[in-house]
């Protein structure tokens, strides 16, 4: 790039150089976004009517509201097929090229994601926050305290479950099949996974919701945070294996110390996402109010300003839990450093 600039390349020319350089990454990102959107549930449910729905909302309608198992199964298979075809291209074409080169350049810092999300989404609700009577009305809501508590617990639990699942994943890696599964799966269907939990009668309280959310977040978190870093230490893991180290030994001496930052960052993101969750709660535990369930109820009764105030609360709380996870990681790292010193 510097060379091109020195040789007086025009802005347009530089732009095309960047595009050609990033084309694999852009393709990867667009496929990931496609597969995530394909199974997205909450936003189409809130914004769209049932007449103009997505496959995921249609699945919800058929499976939960109409209890039509045969049609649900066909929709589910169709959804799997579409995501599967895209996953195939995702694995076959750009990912292998990137892996061959052994360096994954996303072009943006995942660490900035929570901050960007917070600021981007907090901007509009803030306009309503300055209208003090909305804030006062929200503070006077009798169910607010319980909703705050539940959201905090759900967020914390989901982060903890995600951390545990990711720890388990890096314990079992390198494992070709597991790696392929996590890389190819866009995100499991919210409705289908929720229905599975209902089928096994695992649906009371926040615990099943948090576990289900952690499972939903797992492939995305792995792809975004863990896989690039894990790939960088893969050769070290091979060296350790050749030196006779077993899984547990490698996990505690090699992987964990070098991936702890990414693990806690991913767990924090999962906690942040969980703070904005309401779709799974409606499926699994509709009697448990959280801030976003409250926001949805207020939205339903056209109290838009109050609903947005609650959304800001929810984002702030999610951000707080994200920060808590980073703090725990920082303290743990400092402790282990002082031990080594």
């Amino acid at each position: 790039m510097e060379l091109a600039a020195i040789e007086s390349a025009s802005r347009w020319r530089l732009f095309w150089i960047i595009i050609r350089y990033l084309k694999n990454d852009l393709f990867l990102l667009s496929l990931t976004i496609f597969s995530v959107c394909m199974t997205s549930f909450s936003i189409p449910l809130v914004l769209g009517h049932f007449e103009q729905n997505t496959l995921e909302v249609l699945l919800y309608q058929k499976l939960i509201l109409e209890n039509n198992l045969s049609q649900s199964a066909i929709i589910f298979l169709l959804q799997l097929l579409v995501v599967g075809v895209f996953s195939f291209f995702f694995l076959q074409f750009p990912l292998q090229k990137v892996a061959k080169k052994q360096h994954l350049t996303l072009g943006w810092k995942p660490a900035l994601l929570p901050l960007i999300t917070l600021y981007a989404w907090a901007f509009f609700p803030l306009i309503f926050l300055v209208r003090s009577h909305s804030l006062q009305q929200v503070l006077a809501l009798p169910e607010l305290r319980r909703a705050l508590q539940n959201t905090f617990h759900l967020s914390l639990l989901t982060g903890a479950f995600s951390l545990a699942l990711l720890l388990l994943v890096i314990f079992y890696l390198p494992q070709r099949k597991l790696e392929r599964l996590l890389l190819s799966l866009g995100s499991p269907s919210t409705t289908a996974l929720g229905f599975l939990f209902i089928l096994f009668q695992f649906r009371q309280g926040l615990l099943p919701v948090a576990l289900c959310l952690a499972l939903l977040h797992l492939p995305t978190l792995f792809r975004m945070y863990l896989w690039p870093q894990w790939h960088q230490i893969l050769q070290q893991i091979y060296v350790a294996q050749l030196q006779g180290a077993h899984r547990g030994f490698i996990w505690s001496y090699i992987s964990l110390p070098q991936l702890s930052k990414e693990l806690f960052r991913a767990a924090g993101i999962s906690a942040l996402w969980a703070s904005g969750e309401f779709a799974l709660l409606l499926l699994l535990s509709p009697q448990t109010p959280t801030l976003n369930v409250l926001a949805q109820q207020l939205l339903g009764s056209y109290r838009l300003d109050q609903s947005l105030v609650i959304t800001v609360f929810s984002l702030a709380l999610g951000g707080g839990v994200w920060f808590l996870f980073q703090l725990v990681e920082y303290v743990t790292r400092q402790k282990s450093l002082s031990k080594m010193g």
Partner: protein
Amino acid sequence: MSLVKNLYRKWDDFSLEIPHWEIPDEGISALWGPSGAGKTSVFRSLLGLEPCPTLQWIFHGQDIAKLPLAKKNLGVVFQSLELFPHLTAEENILFPMQARKLNSEHSFQLKNTIVNELQITKLLSKMVHKLSGGEQQRVAIARALVGQPQFLFLDEPFSSIDEDLKKEARSLVAKVIQLTKTPTLLITHDQRDVDALASHVFQIRNGKLLL
């Protein structure tokens, strides 16, 4: 003598065809050839890092190719060294001893001898990322040998150090390998490495060994 049989692998534009290869189980054998000849593919296949279902590697009556990585009892120094950056030089060196539970007095004596021979005693307490290229290379050699491997692999071990230091590095490595009597396969494209270290030379071109 160890025997490598049926080392066949095929990629889109390259194939590896080594039906029969006898590697001496003493001294340093060199696998020498130009870039793109297939040296690294042979190295990775023998280590078990690349899948090669047809491969057999008979050593001391056992087919090492069929064993999982942790049971092969091999030592390896990659071109990129792959030291553990979050550990000190000593922690790196002790890693294989801890992993293989080598805690006898003899093991610690051997470790001290190797460390002395490679002249890295003063570096032990330093974090490896603070060491120079040559120092890191010596730590990697020590780490590969203290685990008492039955076979040592060196993949272009001198490529990351300055020309001035290469001569000294070669003689240190030769000395310490002779001391531990570990059979070694040196993978290199540099004729000077071969001249200075190898007791047996195998040349590879286009994925085939030249006889």
